[in-house]
């Protein structure tokens, strides 16, 4: 089962994509995605209900968050009320160890995204401040990466034994599915996703067209 684990809709301040338009694009372009996860910036969108779109387009649409920490950006899957009340999602300098601990405690799954990116990637901060215990999984393929960033992510994740997943980081509809994650398990809801991420039985994949 293939899910794009990192997308933004108009709920994010810099997102330009409506969720239904993502669905239309996936079907129109016959992308090999079974669904996608909305990871809005610095918030958790608890109110939007996309079940009618899931039914209409036959896609799994899940909701998560992209929060900002002192070690870069982090995707958090399985956000619930306990986690929302554990720290301020809107802050840009949440301590990474605290976010990891809170996610574990609340039954969620936190993983740094675009770790090879300057300033907002985990490995740039490792160079300056050292590694953080508790990181086990990172986004190794990100659709918004510039040349060299994903290569660094793959290399560093491999050296450190981190599992790697993929996400497009799309903010406009035509970018969805650039990168995604191929799971062994079937995933129907956010609990399934958190469970599948914990197993480590997944692979980062890319469908980005090779630029000539």
């Amino acid at each position, binding site marked *: 089962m293939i899910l794009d684990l990192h997308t933004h809709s108009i709920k994010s*301040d810099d997102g330009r994509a409506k969720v239904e338009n993502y669905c239309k694009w996936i079907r129109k372009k016959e992308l090999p995605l079974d669904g996608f996860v909305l990871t809005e910036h610095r918030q958790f969108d608890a109110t939007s209900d996309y079940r009618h779109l899931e039914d209409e387009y036959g896609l799994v649409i899940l909701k998560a968050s992209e929060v900002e920490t002192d070690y870069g*950006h982090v995707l958090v899957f399985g956000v619930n009320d306990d986690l929302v009340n554990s720290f301020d999602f809107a802050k*840009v*300098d949440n301590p990474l160890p605290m976010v990891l601990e809170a996610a574990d405690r609340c039954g969620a799954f936190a993983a740094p995204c675009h770790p090879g990116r300057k*300033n*907002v990637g985990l490995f740039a901060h490792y160079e300056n401040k050292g590694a953080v215990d508790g990181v086990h999984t990172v986004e190794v393929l990100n659709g918004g990466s510039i040349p060299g960033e994903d290569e660094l992510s793959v290399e560093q994740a491999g050296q450190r034994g981190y599992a790697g997943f993929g996400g497009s980081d799309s903010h406009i509809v035509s970018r969805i599915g650039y990168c995604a994650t191929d799971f062994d398990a079937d995933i129907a809801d956010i609990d399934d996703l958190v469970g599948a991420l914990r197993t480590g039985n997944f692979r980062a994949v890319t469908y980005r067209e090779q630029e000539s």
Partner: protein
Amino acid sequence: MSEENPLDLEAIRSEWLGVEFDERTFEPEASRMIAWAEACGETDPRFLDENHPDFQAPPNMTTIFNSGRFLPEGFPNIGSGFGIDGGKTVECLAPIRAGDVLTGTATIADVFDKTGRSGTMVFIVQRMTFSNQSGEPVSVVDWKTIRGI
């Protein structure tokens, strides 16, 4: 905030959000409405033909009606220079007709930070709320400016 970023955005938000700091009037003329519509590539005769029974300004017309002042007097210095344009969003509430007299009121709608490849950025959102001569709200424009810190 981190040690590298001593700005107290909560204090700035608390003091400045919602504060009205400027007001101006604008009188859209038919010729200017049509020129703007053409420049935007509009094809709908409602925006191009001043004899159309529903002739009105294009929905984004109010983005060109700016207050002369971007920030209130006394607003704290954030970063350096004027920053870069972070884009505008428009909410259309009612049609704007030729000859309307619009009153635009400027407020600070939001101040927030985020991090990216180029470091920490602060977004300042100036909101222009437009009403017509009847006091009817017609448009709201949020204009983001990005400043690096």
